[in-house]
């Protein structure tokens, strides 16, 4: 063990300092054996100088830190000094204490390191205070971070020291980026309308040393250019000695509130300008709001009505209504389109449609009602007039229908009478015509030889005329019979009927005419007599209307179209100009003079017969190019 070097001349003084030091001052040799131990060491570690001297310093080191010592001794041997090394040591009573140790090598006169001096300070209390401080700071930070408002703190020079998350999101700056910057660099604010910069609130606080609020309509421009209306206040952070340590700025995004304000303003404008009366009242039926529409409809101004009972508007016999309305409102019910009567200021009774909704306070308790009243006096009047008009119309319609029925019966009787009349007429007309013919025949037979040639010509002309007349009467008779006689329908063999017609009429046979038909001819539903009449008339026309000297050539064919059959009769005749086709099927319609004699009944008869059989007749033709007549009838199954 190396001898302790003799003290310097100031030894007495140094020894006194060591003895009186609050810090433990201990020396040890390079083997860690304690060589000196002052009173403070005794106080801090609990060991007396007698107990500690000659003992290893390891007695002070807790088991889990025993490796510290060789490292310290290594560094001391290398001549290093260890400053303010904070560690844990064990007192004699086993209690662990936090210490701050400064260790310096001790050299002999030759400069050789022979040991180490240790100055240890008990920092347990200090640490405890520090922890406490840190804890409260953390809590403070956490509090500022978690509040809904944005918070920015600055130091006394207006440089940012803290920003919470809300402040970060509103400014677009992160705390780390903003820290140390002057507030105006991060917190850019302008007036919403003038867009002039607004004075830095922190600067104001630092100057005025008091809390300042922000003017209305302040816009915060974030780092990315986003603008938000904000509301803020800045307050000084005072230290104990009344000096300002910094400023805390609290602000919030009022975009939503501003939007809500705008909505509220708009709603107010709507209410004001509404055509309907919009009124609010409390649960005692006292009017609390009265818009312009209410003024217009009821005649009272809002000054007259606010504070008055709604009963002012309700006719006395309807006062019960209000009681019922209030009790329904209290149950939270809404009343929609309730039609009732109210009285205007001038005493007029108005028909109105009411919609009433409960108004609730923030707790959801019904505290009153809003009423929307629409004047429906005119509408109701119109409705009543409409109802009356409808009833009147209904009556007229019924009367009309009755009249139509009556007239229809009369008309049907008239038609039946007319049919019977025309039948009888045509029938009875035949007898005298035939008598005339017969008398003329007798005249010729009995007295023909006595007549001069001129007279004979005249008699023959009379005979010809009566024959035409008889023919016409016969056709008319057929027509009237086709019109009113029952016409039972049955399946008809078209081919047989055509053959039959041709068989009995030499004018339809060669060499007078050439009639071809394309087989098979479809069977149709019809009345045999009527169908025969139709075809006979059509063939009559086909052979009649040909150019002089030409032999009629006729082609008959059929085509099936859905549930119907088309029977076509094509001829090589003189044709019919398109202008004449429309009147072709009309009664007594004749297109030609004496060159082609006729009475204009034939095709009218065809149309009547086809229509009675539920079909239709048509023609396609061109002057000079022949005609094609089409009969369309139901197909026979």
């Amino acid at each position, binding site marked *: 063990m190396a001898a302790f070097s003799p003290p310097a001349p100031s030894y007495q003084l140094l020894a006194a300092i060591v003895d009186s030091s609050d810090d433990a001052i201990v020396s040890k040799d390079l083997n860690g054996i304690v060589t000196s131990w002052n009173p403070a060491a005794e106080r801090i570690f609990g060991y007396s100088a007698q107990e500690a001297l000659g003992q290893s310093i390891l007695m002070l080191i807790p088991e889990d830190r025993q490796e510290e010592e060789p490292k310290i001794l290594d560094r001391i041997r290398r001549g290093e000094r260890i400053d303010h090394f904070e560690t844990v040591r064990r007192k004699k009573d086993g209690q662990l204490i936090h210490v701050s140790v400064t260790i310096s090598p001790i050299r002999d006169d030759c400069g050789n390191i022979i040991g180490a001096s240790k100055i240890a300070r008990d920092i347990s209390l200090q640490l405890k205070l520090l922890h406490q401080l840190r804890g409260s700071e953390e809590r403070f930070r956490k509090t500022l971070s978690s509040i809904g408002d944005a918070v920015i703190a600055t130091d006394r020079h207006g440089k940012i020291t803290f920003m919470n998350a809300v402040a970060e999101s509103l400014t677009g700056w992160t705390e780390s980026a903003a820290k140390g910057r002057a507030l105006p660099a991060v917190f850019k604010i302008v007036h919403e309308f003038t867009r002039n910069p607004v004075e830095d609130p922190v600067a104001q606080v630092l100057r005025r040393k008091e809390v300042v609020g922000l003017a209305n309509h302040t816009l915060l421009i974030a780092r990315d250019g986003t603008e938000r209306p904000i509301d803020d206040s800045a307050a000084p952070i005072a230290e104990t000695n009344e000096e300002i340590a910094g400023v805390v700025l609290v602000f919030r995004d009022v975009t939503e509130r501003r939007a809500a304000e705008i909505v509220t303003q708009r709603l107010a404008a709507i209410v004001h300008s509404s055509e309907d009366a919009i009124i609010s009242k409390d649960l005692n039926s006292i009017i609390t709001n009265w818009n312009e529409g209410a003024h217009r409809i009821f005649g009272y101004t809002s000054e007259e009505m606010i504070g008055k009972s709604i009963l002012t508007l309700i006719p006395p016999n309807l006062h019960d209504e209000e009681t019922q309305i209030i009790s329904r409102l209290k149950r939270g019910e809404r009343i929609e389109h309730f039609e009732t009567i109210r009285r205007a200021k001038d005493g007029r009774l108005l028909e109105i449609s009411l919609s009433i909704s409960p108004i609730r306070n923030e707790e959801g308790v019904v505290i009153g009602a809003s009423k929307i009243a629409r004047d429906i006096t005119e509408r109701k009047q119109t409705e009543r007039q409409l109802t009356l008009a409808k009833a009147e119309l209904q009556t007229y319609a019924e009367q009309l229908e009755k009249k139509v029925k009556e007239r229809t019966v009369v008309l049907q009787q008239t038609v039946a009478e007319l049919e019977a009349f025309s039948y009888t007429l045509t*029938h009875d007309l035949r007898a005298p015509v*035939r008598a005339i*013919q017969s008398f003329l025949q*007798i005249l010729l*037979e009995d007295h023909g030889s006595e007549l001069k040639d001129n007279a004979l010509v005249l008699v023959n002309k009379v005979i010809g005329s009566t024959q035409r007349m008889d023919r016409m009467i016969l056709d008319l008779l057929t027509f009237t019979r086709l019109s009113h006689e029952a016409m039972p329908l049955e399946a008809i063999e078209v081919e047989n009927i055509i053959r039959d017609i041709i068989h009995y009429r030499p004018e339809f046979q060669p060499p007078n005419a050439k009639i071809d038909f394309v087989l098979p001819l479809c069977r149709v539903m019809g009345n045999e007599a009527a169908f025969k009449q139709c075809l006979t008339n059509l063939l009559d026309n086909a052979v009649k209307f040909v150019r002089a000297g030409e032999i009629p050539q006729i082609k008959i064919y059929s085509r099936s179209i859905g549930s119907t059959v088309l029977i076509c009769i094509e001829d090589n005749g003189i044709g019919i100009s398109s202008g004449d086709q429309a009147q072709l099927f009309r009664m007594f319609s004749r297109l030609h003079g004496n060159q082609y004699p006729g009475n204009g009944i034939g095709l009218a008869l065809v149309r009547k017969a086809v229509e009675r059989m539920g079909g239709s007749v048509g023609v396609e033709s061109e002057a000079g190019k022949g005609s094609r007549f089409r009969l369309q009838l139901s197909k026979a199954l």
Partner: protein
Amino acid sequence: MTQKNHCILLAEDDENDVIFLKRAFVKAEVNDALHLAPDGQIAIDYLSGAGQFADRNTFPFPSLLLLDLKMPRKSGMDVLRWIRAQPTCQILPVIVFSSSVAPQEVSAAYEAGANAFVTKPAGIPERTELVRLIKGFWLTFTQLPYPAPMRAT
């Protein structure tokens, strides 16, 4: 063929038809007596021998009746029904003459007891031909019933 002497009653209101038929009888050389009843009631009176027809020598009971359907007072159908209801003349042969060919009229006439239904021919030659046929069939080959016993007067 011997011409028997029959009495034929013609019930017809149309003077023209009477003229034409009489002429046809002449042309067809019918020699039998032709008596005329110008309406249905007169036909009934003649058959019953009533009033001016009581004298059967002047107005003998006919062997054949040519009956027009359309007549004033009593129609041909009325006369026909009356005839078939009378024991004295229910077997009298009746040829109905009509200008109609309506099937229901034809049926009705036969149902009422007509022996033939003839449509009045239109022309003079046809009438003569018809009368010739009537003469040949009804007045020559047909065995007509003997006139019923005359009513005692």
